[in-house]
C-alpha cells in the first residue's frame, strides 16, 4: 500500500518538478525498527521536516547534492545524491539511535562544503544550539567558549596565536559568510560588525590558514555563518535587561548606583521560492562595570537572495553598526588619581585617560553569485566593500578605511564524486586609508594597499586515505610599490580508522603588516609611538596531528598536538632616539608555540550533555629566550547543560592560568596578576514562540585581568526574552 501511495506521489512530483525546472527528493525517515521520525532533512539550500508518518519531500536545484538527515537522539545521516532537472528521486533513510551527533558539515576549512571529519586541520564549531543556550549579546561572547579559543580584552586568540597587541593587527581572520571582515587600517576585528541575532553558527579553523585565506589567517580563521532565510514570513523580537555587580570590596566602590544594561533587536524575513529577504534592527546601552565605561550601539543588517534558476543563487548582504563608547585605557595607581590609599584601583580610571571615548562606525556590503554549472562543477564570484571609521577623543585621532574585495572561485569534483576535488581561485583587495594617525607622521594622509592572490588546493582519495595539497601566492604592495610576495603552501591528510579519524597537516601562514603598524604615529603610555614603513610580513609554519571520534555511544573525543614556528613577529619595542625612549613596531622575534588542544563531549543521557576542553600551551620567544607574552599555559573549560521538558539549566567554567609574561614588562611587570576562574550560569524556559533566559556571567564575581591594568567583566545578571514567529 505504501508503495502505491509513493508511486502516485512520485508521479505528481515529476510533473511539478518538470514544470518548474527543479528536481524533487522524497521519501520516508524511520528508525531502525521502522517507526517514523519527524526528522529534519537538509539538502542544498532546502530544508524540510518530515511529517508524522516520516514522509518528506524537497525541491532542489539539479546536480550533486549532499543530504543531511537529523533527529534528536539519533546519529545524523549524510547521503550524496545526484538529481536531474524535472526528475524526482526517492530515498528512504533509517536513523541509528545515538546521543552524540556525528559528522557536521563545514564550509571554511577547504573553502567548500565538506564533512567535519574530512578536514585536515582542527575545526571547532559554535552551533546554533550553543548560541541559543547562552543567549549572548555579542558575537565575541559566542566564539569565546569554543575549544582552543581565548579572548584577551576583546582580542581573539586561537591556540595562543595573537597574544595581545592593543588591537593593532590580529593573527586571526574574521569572515562573515566567507567575506573577509578584518579592519582595513588596523587589521583588528570589530566583533560588533554583525548583529548576533543574524548569526546562525560559527566555524573556527585552527592553525595557519593562509594557504586559502592569505594574510591575517596566521593563527586561524573564524567564519560567522548567518541564518538562512526560510520561505514564508518569519520574525523575532528579543529584549535584554540586566545589571552589573558592584565591586566586592568597599575600598573599590566608585559609584553610588548599580550599573545596568539593556537592548532590543528585531528581525523580520520573508521568502518565496525565488526571492527572499531579511532585515535586523537593534540597539543596546550599557553603563559599564567600571568608571567611564558607558556605551551605546545601534545596528542593522539585511540580506536579499534571488534564485533565478536551478543551481543559481544571487545574494546581497550588508550590515552597519554605530557604536559610541567611553574608553577605560588603564586603571589607576598612586599618583594617577585619588586611589584612597590603595596600591591600585581597578574600577577607577587613570586621570590621564579621563574624557577618552570612541565613536566607531563600521559596516559592509557584499554580493555573491553562486552557480552550480553541473554535478561536478560549481563556481562563485564575490565582491565586497568594508568600511570602518573611528574618531577618538583623548588622544584625538581618527581614521577612515575602505576595503574593496573580490574573489572568483571554482570547485571541481572530478568524476562527480568526492574522490578528487580541486578548489581554485583568485582573491584581490584594495584598501584605502585616510587618517591623522596612520597617515603621514602625525599629519592627515592617505595610504593604499593592494593585494592579489591566486590559490589552488587539491584533494585526492587514496583508498581510505584522503590527501590534500595546495598553495596560495600573495602579492602585497603599499602606496604603489611592491612590498612582498609570500607563498603559503599546505599539505595534509585524513585517515579514518577503527580508533577515530586521524588528521595531519603542515602549512605556512603569514601576516602582512597593517597600514597602522607601518605608519602609526601617536602616544601610548606616555611615550611617542613612531612609524616603521620597512616592516616585513611575519610568517609561521604550523604542524598538527590529531584524532577525533566516538569512544563510546555516549562520548566523543577530539585531540590535537600542534607546533608553530614563527619568524619576524611584529611586536611593540622600546627604542631610544636622541636619548628619548620611544615605541616602535618591529620585526623582532622568532617564536615557538606548541601544545595540546583536546576536548571531550559526553551525553550520558539524552537530556544531559557536558564538554571538557583543555589547551596546554608551551611558548618560547627564541630571540629573548623567554616565554611569549600574553599566552596562558593552561586553559580548561567545563560546560554542561540539562534539559527537562520546557526548562533548561547550564553552566560554563573556565580556568585560565596566570599569564607569565606581558608586553612592556618594564612598565607593568610589578602589577598584580592572577589566574582567572570564571563561572557562568544559565537557565531557560521555552513554550511555543516564547522563551526566556536568565544568565549570570562571572557568577562568583571573580576579579581578574588579562591585560595590564584592564579589569575583565564582573558578575553580570541579565534576562533575555524572545518571541519568535
Amino acid at each position, binding site marked *: 500500500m505504501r508503495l502505491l501511495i509513493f508511486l502516485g506521489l512520485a508521479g505528481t512530483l515529476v510533473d511539478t518538478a518538470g514544470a518548474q525546472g527543479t528536481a524533487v527528493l522524497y521519501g520516508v525517515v524511520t528508525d531502525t525498527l521502522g517507526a517514523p521520525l519527524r526528522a529534519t532533512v537538509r539538502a542544498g539550500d532546502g530544508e524540510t521536516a518530515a511529517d508524522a508518518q516520516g514522509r518528506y519531500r524537497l525541491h532542489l536545484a539539479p546536480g550533486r547534492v549532499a543530504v543531511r538527515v537529523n533527529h534528536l537522539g539519533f546519529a545524523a545521516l549524510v547521503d550524496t545524491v545526484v538529481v536531474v532537472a524535472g526528475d524526482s528521486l526517492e530515498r528512504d533513510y533509517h536513523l541509528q539511535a545515538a*546521543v552524540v551527533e556525528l559528522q557536521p558539515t563545514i564550509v571554511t576549512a577547504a573553502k567548500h562544503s565538506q564533512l567535519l571529519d574530512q578536514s585536515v586541520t582542527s575545526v571547532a564549531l559554535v552551533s546554533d544550539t550553543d548560541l541559543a543556550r547562552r543567549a549572548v549579546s555579542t558575537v565575541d561572547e559566542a566564539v569565546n567558549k569554543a575549544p582552543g579559543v581565548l579572548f584577551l580584552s576583546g582580542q581573539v586568540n586561537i591556540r595562543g596565536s595573537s597574544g595581545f597587541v592593543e588591537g593593532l593587527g590580529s593573527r586571526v581572520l574574521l569572515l562573515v559568510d566567507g567575506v573577509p571582515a578584518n579592519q582595513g587600517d588596523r587589521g583588528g576585528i570589530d566583533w560588533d560588525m554583525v548583529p548576533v541575532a543574524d548569526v546562525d553558527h560559527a566555524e573556527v579553523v585552527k592553525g595557519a590558514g593562509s594557504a586559502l585565506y592569505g594574510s591575517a589567517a596566521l593563527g586561524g580563521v573564524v567564519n560567522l555563518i548567518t541564518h538562512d532565510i526560510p520561505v514564508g514570513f518569519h520574525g523575532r523580537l528579543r529584549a535584554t535587561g540586566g545589571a552589573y555587580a558592584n565591586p566586592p*570590596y568597599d*575600598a*573599590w566602590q566608585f559609584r553610588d548606583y548599580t550599573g545596568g544594561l539593556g537592548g532590543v533587536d528585531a528581525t523580520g524575513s520573508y521568502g518565496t521560492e525565488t526571492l527572499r529577504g531579511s532585515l535586523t534592527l537593534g540597539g543596546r546601552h550599557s553603563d559599564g562595570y567600571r568608571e567611564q565605561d558607558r556605551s551605546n550601539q545601534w545596528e542593522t543588517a539585511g540580506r536579499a537572495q534571488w534564485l533565478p534558476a536551478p543551481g543559481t543563487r544571487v545574494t546581497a548582504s550588508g550590515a552597519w553598526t554605530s557604536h559610541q563608547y567611553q574608553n577605560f585605557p588603564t586603571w589607576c*595607581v*598612586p*599618583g*594617577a588619581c585619588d*586611589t584612597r*590609599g*590603595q*596600591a*591600585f584601583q*581597578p574600577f577607577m580610571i587613570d586621570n590621564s585617560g579621563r574624557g577618552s571615548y570612541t565613536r566607531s562606525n563600521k559596516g559592509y556590503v557584499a554580493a555573491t553569485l553562486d552557480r552550480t554549472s553541473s554535478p561536478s562543477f560549481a563556481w562563485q564570484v564575490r565582491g565586497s566593500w568594508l568600511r570602518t571609521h573611528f574618531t577618538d577623543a583623548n588622544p584625538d585621532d581618527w581614521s577612515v578605511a575602505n576595503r574593496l574585495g573580490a574573489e572568483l572561485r571554482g570547485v571541481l569534483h572530478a568524476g562527480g564524486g568526492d574522490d578528487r576535488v580541486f578548489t581554485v581561485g583568485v582573491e584581490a583587495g584594495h584598501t584605502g586609508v585616510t587618517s591623522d594617525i596612520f597617515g603621514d607622521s602625525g599629519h592627515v594622509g592617505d595610504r593604499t594597499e593592494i593585494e592579489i592572490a591566486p590559490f589552488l588546493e587539491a584533494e585526492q582519495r587514496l583508498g581510505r586515505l584522503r590527501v590534500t595539497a595546495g598553495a596560495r601566492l600573495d602579492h602585497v604592495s603599499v602606496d604603489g610599490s611592491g612590498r612582498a610576495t609570500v607563498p603559503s603552501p599546505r599539505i595534509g591528510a585524513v585517515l579514518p580508522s577503527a580508533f577515530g579519524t586521524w588528521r595531519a597537516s603542515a602549512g605556512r601562514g603569514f601576516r602582512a603588516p597593517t597600514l597602522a603598524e607601518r605608519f602609526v604615529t601617536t602616544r601610548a*603610555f*606616555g*611615550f611617542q609611538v613612531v612609524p616603521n614603513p620597512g616592516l616585513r610580513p611575519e610568517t609561521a609554519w604550523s604542524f598538527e596531528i590529531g584524532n577525533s571520534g566516538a569512544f*563510546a*555511544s*555516549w*562520548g566523543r573525543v577530539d585531540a590535537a598536538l600542534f607546533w608553530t614556528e614563527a619568524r619576524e613577529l611584529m611586536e611593540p619595542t*622600546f627604542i631610544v632616539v*636622541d*636619548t*628619548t*625612549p620611544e615605541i616602535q613596531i618591529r620585526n623582532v622575534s622568532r617564536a615557538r608555540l606548541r601544545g595540546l588542544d583536546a576536548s571531550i563531549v*559526553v551525553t*550520558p*543521557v539524552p537530556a544531559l550533555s*557536558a564538554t*571538557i576542553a583543555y589547551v596546554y600551551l608551551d611558548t618560547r620567544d627564541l630571540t629573548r629566550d623567554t616565554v611569549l607574552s600574553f599566552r596562558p599555559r593552561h586553559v*580548561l573549560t*567545563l560546560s554542561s547543560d540539562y534539559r527537562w521538558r520546557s526548562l533548561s539549566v547550564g553552566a560554563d*567554567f573556565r*580556568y585560565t592560568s596566570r599569564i607569565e609574561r606581558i608586553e*612592556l614588562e*618594564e*612598565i*607593568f*611587570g*610589578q*602589577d*598584580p596578576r*592572577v*589566574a582567572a*576562574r570564571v*563561572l557562568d550560569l544559565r537557565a531557560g524556559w521555552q513554550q511555543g514562540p516564547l522563551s526566556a533566559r536568565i544568565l549570570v556571567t562571572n557568577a*562568583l564575581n*571573580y*576579579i*581578574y*585581568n588579562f591585560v595590564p591594568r584592564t579589569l575583565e567583566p564582573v558578575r553580570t545578571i541579565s534576562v533575555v526574552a524572545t518571541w519568535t514567529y
Partner: protein
Amino acid sequence: MIAGMPSRVARAALAAAAAALLACDEGLHPITCSGICGTVTFAGAVPESTQAVYIVAYHTFPRSRDSLFNFQPPLPSLHALPLGGVPTLYNIPVEPGRYEWVLAVWVKQGFNLTNADSTLRETGYYRDPADTSQPGAVTVAGGPADTINFIVDFAHMHPPCHYYNPPCP
C-alpha cells in the same frame, strides 16, 4: 546513566570542577601598598622650572655618574608626584630586595640623558630613624615596605654629584 560509562570519568570531572570552584577566592584583592610606599610631605616653593618630581630607589648608593640611572622602578614605570602641596601617598612598584637610598628626584625642564648633572636634583630622601642624618635602608621581602615617609624640600635640593666620590665642588 548509560551503561558502561566509567563512573570515574564523572567523578574526576566533578572533582576538577569542585577544586576549581573552591579556589575562586583568589582573585585580585585590595592592596594598600606594593613595593615601597608611604607619604611625602612638601616644603618650600615649587621651582617654576619644574618638569616633574619622581620617587626612585637605589639598591646601592650611586657614587658616580655611571650608576646614576641604576634605580628602580625603571624609567617607563615612573609616575610624577602630584605637586599640590598636600601630603601625598606614593607607591613605587620595585622588585624585592634591599634598597640603600629611597629619594625624591626633581627634574628640571629640558632634561635629557646627557645633561642629567645639571637638570636633576635630590630633593628629599627617606632617613634612618635611628640617625636622621643618614639615608634609611628599606627592605622589600615577602611583602611591601610601607610607611616609608619623608619630606620633599624644594628649598634644599642637591645635584647628583653632591653624592659622588669625590663630590663636586
